[in-house]
């Protein structure tokens, strides 16, 4: 089963807005998600991530603006979007009284998959997730991690072109999270599906996502590849040595390639601007009579970028 995308774009929103009586949940969101990648949608609690997914699935009407998903306008062709997308929303949505296989069977029938294809696909996914041997057990008797895997299998069952995963590893222990993350990464690579992933786990986003967007209070703060975003924050360099004075620190801070410089516990910490080199700064230090013993570069993490963005918006 193949689905159309619009010029390699799976999701396109323009000034997408959704108001509730007392709050603007999504505020003029303009976004493009390329097809075939894992796209991370990051933001604190209540930032509008879930509302955005609901808007993109046509479950809620936008107050203003528009959104196209897989080439379909969500206002007028929501049914077509839902037909071609899979979703793991805030809750697993599993029928706990039914067996794992019946849960998948139900959604396979909903997707109108032919019986033989449905059976083969269910077996393939349950085997991939290591759940095949326990397929006859009721979903309610399973651990949270297993349920989450089953819910991901359900979302991928009909080979959708696009999958929405709303915090799939939330409330899982680190081992279960890592296992699910690896499973998702493996399936995405194998099936070429576009994934719209919301998560609080920034390490997870950094590992899985080709692009991320950060929102706060419904507004888009930034979007780009994780390495671009971390590079924008600059590079932090720790210099160990002797002879660092306040005057020298001021001199370093005045260099064009340096964003900030500070001394702490006898060590010099320098934040370099995007793409800046450290060697001119080291030359300056040595030229000023300081003795440099060790220079250690640290790339900012996505978490630091995220926290900085949240801080700036406060």
């Amino acid at each position, binding site marked *: 089963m193949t689905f159309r995308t619009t010029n390699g774009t799976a999701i396109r929103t323009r000034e997408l807005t959704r108001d509730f009586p007392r709050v603007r949940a999504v505020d003029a969101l303009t976004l493009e998600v390329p097809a075939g990648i894992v796209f991370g949608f990051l933001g604190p609690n209540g930032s509008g991530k879930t509302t955005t997914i609901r808007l993109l699935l046509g*479950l*809620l009407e936008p107050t203003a603006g528009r959104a196209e998903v897989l080439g379909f306008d969500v206002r007028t062709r929501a*049914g077509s979007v839902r037909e071609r997308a899979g979703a*793991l*929303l805030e809750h697993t*949505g599993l029928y706990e009284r*039914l067996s794992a296989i019946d849960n998948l069977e139900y959604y396979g029938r909903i997707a109108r998959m032919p019986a033989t294809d449905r059976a083969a696909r269910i077996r393939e996914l349950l085997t991939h997730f290591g759940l095949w041997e326990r397929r006859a057990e009721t979903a309610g008797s399973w651990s949270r991690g297993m349920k989450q895997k089953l819910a991901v299998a*359900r979302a991928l069952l009909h080979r959708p072109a696009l999958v929405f995963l709303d915090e799939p590893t939330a409330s899982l222990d680190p081992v279960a999270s890592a296992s699910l993350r690896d499973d998702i990464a493996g399936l995405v690579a194998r099936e070429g599906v576009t994934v719209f992933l919301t998560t609080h786990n920034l390490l997870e986003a950094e590992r899985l996502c080709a692009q991320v967007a950060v929102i706060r209070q419904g507004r888009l703060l930034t979007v780009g590849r994780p390495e671009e975003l971390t590079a924008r924050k600059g590079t932090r360099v720790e210099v160990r040595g002797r002879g660092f004075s306040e005057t020298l620190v001021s001199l370093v801070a005045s260099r064009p390639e340096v964003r900030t410089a500070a001394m702490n516990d006898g060590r010099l910490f320098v934040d370099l601007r995007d793409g800046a080199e450290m060697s001119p700064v080291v030359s300056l230090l040595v030229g000023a009579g300081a003795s440099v013993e060790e220079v250690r570069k640290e790339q900012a993490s996505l978490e630091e970028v995220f926290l900085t963005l949240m801080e700036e918006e406060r």
Partner: protein
Amino acid sequence: MIADVVTVAWKEVKELLAMGGNLRGGRIGIVIMVGVFGVFLPLQTGREWVTSPMTIAYWAWVPLMLVTGVVADSFAGERERHTLETLLASRLPDRAILFGKVAAAIAYGWGFMILMFIVGLVTVNIAHGHGRLLLFSSSFTLGALLCGLLTSGLAASAGVLVSLRAATVRQAAQNLSIGIMLCIFVPAFGIPALPKSWKASLMQAAMALSAAEWIAVVGIVLAAIDAVLLLAAITRFKRARLILD
């Protein structure tokens, strides 16, 4: 559309049958109902079980009670167990979801009614047949099946309508019970409270109708109520409202 309705009904019936331990909707409740209406009452009533008009009233009442016991769960249960949003995010059209749930509730109530109907017939033949085959007349059978189907439909449409807006299954069940109690008690207390001349006219009109005409009138009224309730449920079914509620 029909395939989608069958799919939703398939899941609903599977879930209903998987419910264990719940006295009203579960297996124990069904066993008790079959025991009472399939064994005890036919034994007590004797040969009149296959001729008494009172038996038709049972076949109208039994599915009503069976469906009422389970239909409150249709939407409120999905909402309570957090499965509703995932279902709404699927490709299923609104009406397929709605009709599938109504169909499942009807199939459950009417199906077990037919089972009790057959068990009752077997019981009365074993206990009171004395070598003769006791059977319901064809008009009686048709009337009983029709009444059972329509009261199942009544409970299913009303239940789905109530369940659509209820936050919890308990709230839906309470609202539905209140509605059914009103349906029973308003005529029960209202008719005796009518002026004597009105009661006399009503009695005269009632006596003028044959049993078959009575069944036809009741059938038409029930079918009309079922249709109105179903239309109300269709109007009320809004994906956004179901999610935000």
